[in-house]
């Protein structure tokens, strides 16, 4: 085919323009087919996720609740106690919040910025609530400083000033177990470090699950690929049935099997192999076993389709030429299966890193993964901003893996069933 520019030279200017118009029309037509779904995905999926992740950076709650206090605090040099006007503004705003039953929200926000503040804010708000308006102007500040020693700590007020910033990256610090200390230096969080450990554990569990899937899936796929096609198709049904069976059904099955009084324990104790039932359910062991079971078909199917396409005569030729079976397998057959193996491995790894349901149901406390802590902050601790920050990090990790998958396998080449 001649290059486009060469073609254009051969045409008159008018014809070229017309060709360009036709081309643009064709492109628009193609786009018109895609547009409804594109808009739908953008509006129902991309925008919702984007706006949720935005929460991790934009958090105006404190600024909306105590705006005047924050204005005053901005005048303060950060040394010693803030001045009388700042404290007075704060007393008034806390008093007003208490009357609208909103002091609890402030308490929650302060608690995130300064551990243990929730009860201090609430009890102080209650004490202030007992004053009437005129007394608030005269005794308010004294009552505040009296209610708890924390109100006299400059670091608390620095934390409040920080929490009042509308744009913040603090939730990412928390999500990475970091904090900013008094000298404005970044350091590893002192009291508790949980999230990095949890990310490490999630990656470790995902890796174990992926390895198990590869170890179990590879021989099976190899065996199936070596069978005549009709027999392989018959056995493939046994792989496809779990694939098509509801995730909750499979999780239920593992609960029934692994329970203290479940099928496996009954068999083991009943046959006299054990005298004490094993604790298997609600452990990370349960998470690994159940997820391996659930994700195994995602490994087997791409492996099998690649192995089917490999001509067995290669290996046979090597063997007939005197190569020993294992080296021949390792040097000739295995490299040819790598596309299937990498597709399956990445797919299983990507899915398991973000998994929620199965760990939530069978994992107990030590089988929880990063998705579970995100759900926890969404539903239980209501720290949506931290959930968003943790979610952004998880999403970044997944997108990185997806990019890798796209490079190695091609996202458009995902095959189903």
């Amino acid at each position, binding site marked *: 085919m001649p290059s486009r520019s060469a073609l254009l030279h051969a045409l008159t200017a008018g014809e070229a323009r017309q060709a360009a118009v036709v081309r643009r029309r064709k492109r628009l037509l193609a786009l018109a087919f895609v547009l409804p779904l594109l808009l739908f995905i953008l509006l*129902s999926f991309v925008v*919702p996720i984007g706006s949720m992740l935005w929460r991790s950076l934009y958090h105006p709650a404190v600024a909306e609740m105590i705006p005047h206090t924050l204005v005053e605090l901005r005048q303060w040099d950060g040394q010693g106690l803030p001045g009388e006007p700042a404290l007075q503004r704060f007393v008034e705003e806390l008093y007003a919040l208490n009357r609208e039953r909103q002091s609890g929200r402030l308490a929650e926000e302060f608690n995130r910025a300064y551990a243990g503040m929730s009860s201090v804010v609430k009890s102080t708000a209650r004490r202030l609530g007992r004053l009437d308006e005129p007394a608030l102007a005269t005794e308010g500040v004294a009552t505040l400083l009296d209610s708890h020693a924390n109100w006299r700590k400059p670091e608390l007020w620095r934390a409040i000033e920080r929490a009042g910033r509308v744009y913040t990256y603090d939730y990412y610090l928390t999500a990475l177990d970091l904090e900013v200390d008094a000298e404005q230096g970044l350091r590893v969080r002192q009291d508790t470090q949980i999230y990095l450990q949890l990310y490490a554990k999630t990656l470790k569990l995902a890796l174990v699950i992926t390895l198990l899937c590869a170890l179990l899936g590879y021989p099976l796929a190899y065996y199936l690929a070596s069978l005549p096609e009709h027999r392989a198709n018959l056995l493939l049904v046994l792989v496809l049935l779990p694939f098509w069976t509801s995730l909750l059904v499979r999780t239920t*099955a593992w609960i029934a099997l692994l329970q203290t009084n479940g099928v496996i324990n009954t068999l083991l104790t009943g046959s006299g192999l054990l005298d004490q039932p094993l604790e298997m359910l609600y452990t990370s062991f349960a998470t690994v076993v159940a997820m391996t079971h659930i994700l195994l078909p995602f490994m087997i199917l791409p492996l099998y389709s690649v192995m089917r396409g490999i001509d067995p005569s290669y290996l046979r030729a090597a063997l007939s030429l005197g190569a020993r079976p294992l080296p021949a397998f390792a040097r000739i057959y295995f490299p040819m299966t790598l596309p299937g193996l990498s597709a399956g491995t990445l797919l299983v790894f990507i899915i398991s890193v973000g998994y929620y349901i199965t760990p939530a149901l069978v994992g107990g406390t030590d089988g929880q993964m990063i998705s579970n802590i995100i759900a926890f902050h969404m539903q239980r601790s209501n720290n949506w901003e931290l959930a968003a920050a943790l979610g952004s990090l998880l999403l970044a990790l997944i997108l990185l893996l997806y990019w890798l998958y796209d490079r190695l396998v091609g996202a458009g080449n995902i095959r189903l*069933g």
Partner: protein
Amino acid sequence: MASTPAYYGFWHHLGRLLLRLGAWLVLLFLILPILVIVPLSFNVEPFFSFTEGMLTLQPEAYSLRWYEQVFSDPRWRLAIRNSFIIGLFATALATVLGTCAALGLARADMPMRRLITALLLSPMIVPLIITAAGMFFFYSSLGLAGTHLGVILAHAALGTPFVVITVTAALTGFDYSLARAALGLGATPWRMFFDIIVPLIRPGVISGALFAFITSFDEVVVILFLAGPQQRTIPRQMFSGLREQINPSILAIATLLILFSIALLVTIELLRRRAARLRLAPAD
């Protein structure tokens, strides 16, 4: 294998035997946990394990009580109905949008194909917990959370990638000169579409629709965040059952779901064979 070449020695046979053994063990690992549910669902006792009576096959150890419970409990009935309503509507929406998009993506002059494909497939890749959290806030602000419509839209979004993939797969290798020939011979674009494109993509559309349906039918994370009590589905009901009060009516519904997935599997398999036949003999 029928004839064994001479260079296959003892070790090779042993290896072959071990491979077969290993493969069958993995197959058992895949299938046994699912099969174990079926007899347990007939347990007369409210436990998740085999009783002595069951193992010695005494008829009084078995009963249909958990099936009766499922069908007499209004919550399960609501859940079953919701699962089908939401699944069907989400599938219809996902299938129409996904098929249309796949037709566009298959055109040679599609701009930014790689980016758009990645975007359209992203609902399959993003962890469900992130999707669910995002939808929770956004749909709440639009008043769509806790409505059937909201859940249907969410599930449709999750189902579209499968339709895009299967229909695109059905279109690969399609010779567009056929379409041009039809148009050249005077067929209207509609006629060309229904006579040439539709038969070609039909198996892809149907299996994509099945995938979209099963995605919705099996989905629970988005439901957990987005659905209200009126939109409880089967998986949602199972999830709270497993978390809060484990009783064998869950095993009964699980058994029914296994039967359902066998039916789906058979359908898919028949479709696959039909598609293979069509490809071998393109003249219809």
